């Protein structure tokens, strides 16, 4: 029997504040339901990231946790995995620390892992909190939905391309993009978790690891997506109504 597909959930106790650990659950289950042996490896903060995993998942976290995580990852294990062609999916703080630089809790510029050509500083306006909707640049993924909750503005360099074009919400806060794609590294600001709300994205990542996949019945996910799309439309209509003022009398 083949070895199980190993999904490494990187430092969930510090990069798991916004439910993003669910991404590893989704990936593992979608393989198992197709009869492919798979397991999630929870990587503890006092351990190095295993280099022999097949797919690495990073989530969001608080500022101090983000710095702790990037300092641990400074041992180069994740960079070596990426060099070996492994796939990485990173969300929010997990996305920011893969870039060239980000801001730590004290607002100082901190070096990232340099796996994505991007730099993160602060959004000009208030924190970006709310539903985020976009169209993914990844083949076959289509519309992506989730919830963003961050204060970072991420500007991509020439080696990275946006993961999605934002239709509603803030995303990177730059050039109407959300997240980044650079080689085998895919990153986004979407929580929800992203892979529960967007099963096509989960399968796009899995295909990079195991090749073609049998279809699954995703009726419940599709129902959730339809409901979220409708909620965004409802919220827009409410905003328009609130902003509408009768024309001033002459």
């Amino acid at each position, binding site marked *: 029997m083949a070895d199980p597909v190993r999904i490494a959930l990187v430092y969930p106790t510090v990069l798991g*504040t*916004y*439910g993003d650990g669910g991404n590893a*659950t*989704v990936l593992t289950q979608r393989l198992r339901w197709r009869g492919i042996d798979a397991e999630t490896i929870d990587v503890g903060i006092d351990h190095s990231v295993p280099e022999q995993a097949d797919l690495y998942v990073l989530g969001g976290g608080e500022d*101090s946790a983000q710095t*702790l995580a990037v300092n641990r990852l400074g041992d180069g294990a994740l960079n070596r995995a990426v060099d070996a062609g492994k796939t990485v999916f990173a969300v929010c703080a997990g996305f920011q620390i893969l870039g060239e630089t980000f801001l730590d*809790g004290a607002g100082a510029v901190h070096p990232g892992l340099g796996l994505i050509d991007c730099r993160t500083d602060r959004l000009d306006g208030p924190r970006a909190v709310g539903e985020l909707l976009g169209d993914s640049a990844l083949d076959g993924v289509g519309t992506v939905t989730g919830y963003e909750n961050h204060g970072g503005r991420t500007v991509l360099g020439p080696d990275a391309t946006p993961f999605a074009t934002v239709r509603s919400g803030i995303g990177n806060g730059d050039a109407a993009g959300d997240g980044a794609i650079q080689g085998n590294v895919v990153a986004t600001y979407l929580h929800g978790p992203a892979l529960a709300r967007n099963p096509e994205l989960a399968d796009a990542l899995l295909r990079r690891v195991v090749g073609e996949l049998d279809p699954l019945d995703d009726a*419940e996910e599709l129902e*959730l997506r339809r409901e979220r799309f409708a909620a965004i439309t409802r919220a827009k209509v409410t905003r328009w109504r609130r902003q509408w003022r009768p024309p001033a009398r002459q």
Partner: protein
Amino acid sequence: MTSTRYALARTAGSLAAGLSRRTGRGDGTTVGGRITLALDPTALEHAAGGRDFAIVSGTNGKSTTRTFLTAALLTRGPVVSNAGGANLPTGLTAALTRDRTARIGVLEVDEPFVPIVSEAVHPRVAVLLNLSRDQLDRYAEVRRLAGIWRDALSRPEAPVAVANCDDPLVVWAASAAATTVWVSAGQRWANDTAVCPACGGVITRDGADWSSDCGLRRPTPTWTVEGTQVTDPDGTRHQVTLAIPGDVNVGNAAMAAAAAALWDVTPADAFTAMTLIDEVEGRYLRTSFAGVPVRLLLAKNPAGWVEALSMVPDHEVGVVIAVNARPADGRDPSWLWDVGFEVLRGRVAVATGERSRDVAVRLRYADVDHTRVDDEAAALRAATKVGPVEVLANYTAFQTYRRVVGDG
């Protein structure tokens, strides 16, 4: 020494509250308090009127601990409390203007409002239960809340802190107080305290003990909780047999007893008073629906859900999972994935509430058999087909279920 302005503000607030009650819009607590505070921003301080207060705060267990402490202090005389759980300054102002005679007050306070309320009512004691992720769309970071508490407790004339030594965030905050009483109230949810709030390093755990390289470590408790036994500072062991479920509530009872001791209530008297509490504003309420026993459990955040799921029995029961995502609940239900719903495998769950679709997807990936029913009453009826029902609901969904079963 009541000022004219405060008297007017109080009257206007209670008129508005009465109007709100009579027109069936609500119990009037919030609107009344809001009007009073708008007319006189110092109304909370006036309403406090130099009385003797305990405040209770924390992510989970505020209402239960407030109820326990109130029961214990009633052995000393009348107690005013924000029963109903309206725990923002508006609700507190309304509660204190309604009852102006009781000399002792027990107030549960929403976590970020601890400094404002402390400044206004000058409590004798602050009971600090725990801090974990909740409503992240509003508060973003848990550590920030701990910092707010720490600042409040380092002010001169800050209250005595009765604090949970098992929660590193609480310890960091409470160690700023001049006087602290440590209670080992337990911490089942450690996922927000992997990182030291003081230095940003790793917190190392060894059984119940924990420490950080910077020197922050678990203080030695003077009140110790082991299972259903509480050991008081004199070394006397008390068997605490509560009428409400959950190990976590023995910890809450110990916190309340430690606070009540500051009013010279003996631990034995305090625990006796607490064992009579069999529900807390609908939480843990045992009732029936369509002739089948039903119990209501409130869970507002991952830590609360972990506790609530541990109270669901193993045998044949129907389980209703009801989740909304209104502002009071937090707008983002991503936290559903922080909760190990896998423990429900082998049982039948009904997903309902405004975010029932998120719940259904979560249960799918947890391999839990489930259906999804939009209407809350219909969902409960569907679950009664299985057997006695445990309803687990988050904040606003819980209020819906209190109406469904005809309580409140």
